């Protein structure tokens, strides 16, 4: 659909400003052009500039004499070049001087009409052609440029970056990605106009760089900028300059950027891949509160690719049962002899290609992209089946604790889902212990209290996992409905070597005592750890000292022996 301005442009007479100090020359040009164009006249550069200030949006071309009083044609050309809004108005110089022709073309004129004037047809043709070229150029600019910053848009950036390689094949290139940290907050806190100013400031900084280095840049995805530059001996210097220049131009004290650099791009990669590598580097910048930069490194990329592959393989792995749930027994040590009291479900990924993958690799990844919910449900079902199987085969009910991730807590279907799983396996909620990591409580504690309260009402027992590793306040602990505290493994590991850790465990045990909840210590590997914890009043022990995680059938055999 045509826009209104486009329709107007197609139907209205184009407007021409004739600037000449000689009235006769103005009249003559007027005579030649008046039939096809709307004409404005000025007798010197100063008058012309006043007209341009008010008419620049609708001026199609300026016909400019050079030698004039008050302000000559060269001075006007320079004034037009210096003002961004006027730059796109084409200027044809009217002159009889050959030297002036060259100089005027150099400072921005698009063409010249010699004096004495050519035949009218020639003048009309030259004017028409210059207007057409300028309008086509404007259309092209509108298509290839980001209207806010004037930099290329993404599509043309990639196109011209390839051209840059073609014309400067001898130069190595660096790909750079600049991203504004927490840009949405700038818009929210200072308004969209300030956000736009910031984007323009970044673009100006980038343009400053482009004056020194062969290259090009674009704005992409709101607050991200791509640069493709000739390789610099010290790209950190470029990053540092961009950071300080942007900070200086933005005028906002709390604005920061992160910059990713992929230097000396591998030419066998596509342009998109080169920028991707700079973007990967950009994503590794940790802080979102201060400006920083990072270089792409291949190892990092391999890791990222591996993670991406794992994510892609997940659905298939769940369908094919590549995830294997093992169970680590927990022993109650309150009596004379340790007594098997429950187990914890622990997951492994037996990947057909990569072998056994540790949960330390895929759990954080799944937590990031939400896949953890699928995995949790898988484990809940497997664990419930295992408990039911043991119950059926050995007549013993061994509760199993399963992980409930933070994101599950926001799922309105959580309660129903868990109840369905236990009932469909002929179990009671007491048979599935729910482990919620301490850090999950620190988010929306009001919501947590509500969800956990409901689950407890249903009969589920709640274990606060990794206690001591998060930032629970004592105040929160007193109001949080929990049934068991699970001591963070870090304390247990050093409990015999460090008095400080030993003292901390004592304090935690005192807190648990105050709250009237039992404490589980996991990661117990040595007898001395076990004995110490027992002497300190710890209730339940889990760790290699007693047993490594076992496949369900092995734990079943253990239960058979117990029986």
């Amino acid at each position: 659909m045509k826009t209104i301005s486009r329709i107007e442009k197609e139907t209205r007479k184009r407007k021409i400003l004739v600037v000449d100090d000689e009235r006769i020359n103005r009249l003559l040009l007027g005579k030649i052009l008046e039939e096809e164009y709307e004409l404005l006249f000025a007798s010197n550069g100063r008058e012309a500039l006043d007209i341009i200030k008010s008419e620049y949006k609708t001026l199609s071309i300026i016909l400019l004499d050079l030698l004039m009083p008050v302000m000559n044609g060269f001075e006007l050309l320079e004034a037009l070049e210096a003002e961004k809004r006027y730059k796109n108005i084409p200027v044809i110089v009217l002159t009889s001087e050959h030297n002036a022709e060259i100089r005027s073309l150099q400072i921005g004129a698009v063409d010249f009409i010699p004096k004495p004037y050519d035949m009218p047809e020639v003048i009309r043709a030259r004017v028409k052609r210059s207007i057409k070229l300028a309008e086509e150029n404007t259309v092209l600019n509108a298509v290839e440029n980001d209207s806010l910053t004037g930099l290329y848009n993404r599509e043309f950036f990639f196109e011209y970056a390839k051209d840059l390689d073609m014309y400067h094949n001898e130069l190595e290139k660096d790909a750079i990605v600049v991203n504004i940290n927490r840009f949405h907050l700038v818009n929210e806190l200072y308004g969209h106009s300030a956000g736009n100013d910031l984007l323009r400031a970044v673009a100006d900084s980038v343009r400053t760089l482009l004056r020194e280095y062969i290259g090009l840049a674009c704005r992409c995805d709101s607050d991200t900028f791509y640069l493709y530059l000739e390789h610099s001996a010290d790209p950190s210097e470029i990053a540092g300059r961009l950071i300080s220049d942007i900070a200086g131009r933005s005028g906002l004290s709390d604005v920061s950027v992160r910059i990713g650099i992929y230097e000396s791009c591998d030419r066998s990669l596509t342009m998109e891949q080169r920028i991707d590598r700079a973007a990967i580097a950009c994503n590794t910048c940790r802080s979102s509160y201060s400006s920083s930069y990072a270089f792409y490194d291949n190892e990092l990329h391999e890791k990222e690719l591996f993670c991406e592959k794992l994510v892609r393989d997940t659905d298939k792995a769940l369908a094919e049962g590549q995830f294997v749930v093992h169970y680590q027994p927990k022993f109650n040590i309150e009596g004379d002899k340790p007594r098997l009291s429950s187990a914890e479900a622990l997951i492994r990924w037996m990947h057909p290609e990569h072998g056994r993958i540790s949960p330390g690799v895929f759990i954080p990844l799944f937590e990031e992209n939400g896949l953890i919910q699928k995995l949790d449900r898988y484990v809940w079902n497997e664990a419930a089946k295992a408990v039911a199987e043991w119950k059926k085969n050995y007549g013993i009910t061994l509760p199993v604790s399963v992980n409930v991730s933070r994101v599950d807590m926001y799922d309105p279907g959580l309660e129903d889902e868990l109840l369905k799983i236990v009932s469909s396996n002929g179990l009671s909620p007491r048979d599935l212990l729910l482990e919620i990591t301490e850090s999950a409580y620190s988010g929306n504690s009001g919501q947590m209290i509500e969800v956990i309260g409901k689950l407890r009402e249903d009969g589920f027992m709640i274990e606060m996992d990794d206690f001591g590793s998060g930032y629970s306040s004592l105040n929160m602990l007193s109001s949080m409905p929990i049934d068991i505290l699970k001591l963070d493994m870090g304390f247990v590991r050093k409990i015999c070597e460090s008095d400080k850790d030993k003292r901390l465990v004592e304090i935690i045990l005192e807190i648990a005592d105050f709250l009237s909840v039992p404490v589980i210590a996991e990661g117990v590997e040595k007898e001395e750890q076990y004995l110490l914890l027992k002497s300190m009043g710890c209730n339940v022990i889990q760790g290699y000292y007693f047993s490594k995680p076992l496949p369900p059938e092995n734990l079943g055999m253990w239960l058979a022996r117990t029986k």
Partner: protein
Amino acid sequence: MITIEKLKDFGADTDEGLARCLNDESFYLMLVQSAITFEQIDRLCEQTSVGDLDGAFETSHALKGVYANLSLTPLYQLVYELTEQLRNRKNIDYGPLTAKLRERMEQLQASAQ
């Protein structure tokens, strides 16, 4: 009143001048009529006599453009010569050239009356 014939007699290339004016005779003659003035010639004489060569160059350059566009060849030739000398800011006696220019303009003015 100036006519095409009188201009031809004066030595103007009226075909070229008319063509530039889309062969609109009355428009062309109106422009020529307005060019028949001593205002700028007087200024040029003044500027050359006091040695204001920059100003004189600007004036003669402007006149050159007008006479060329109107194809007033005898005036154009004189003013062209003046402009070239003034372009190099030559410190010569411009009196004879400006006198000739005045004389030619007087001639044109006389034929226009």
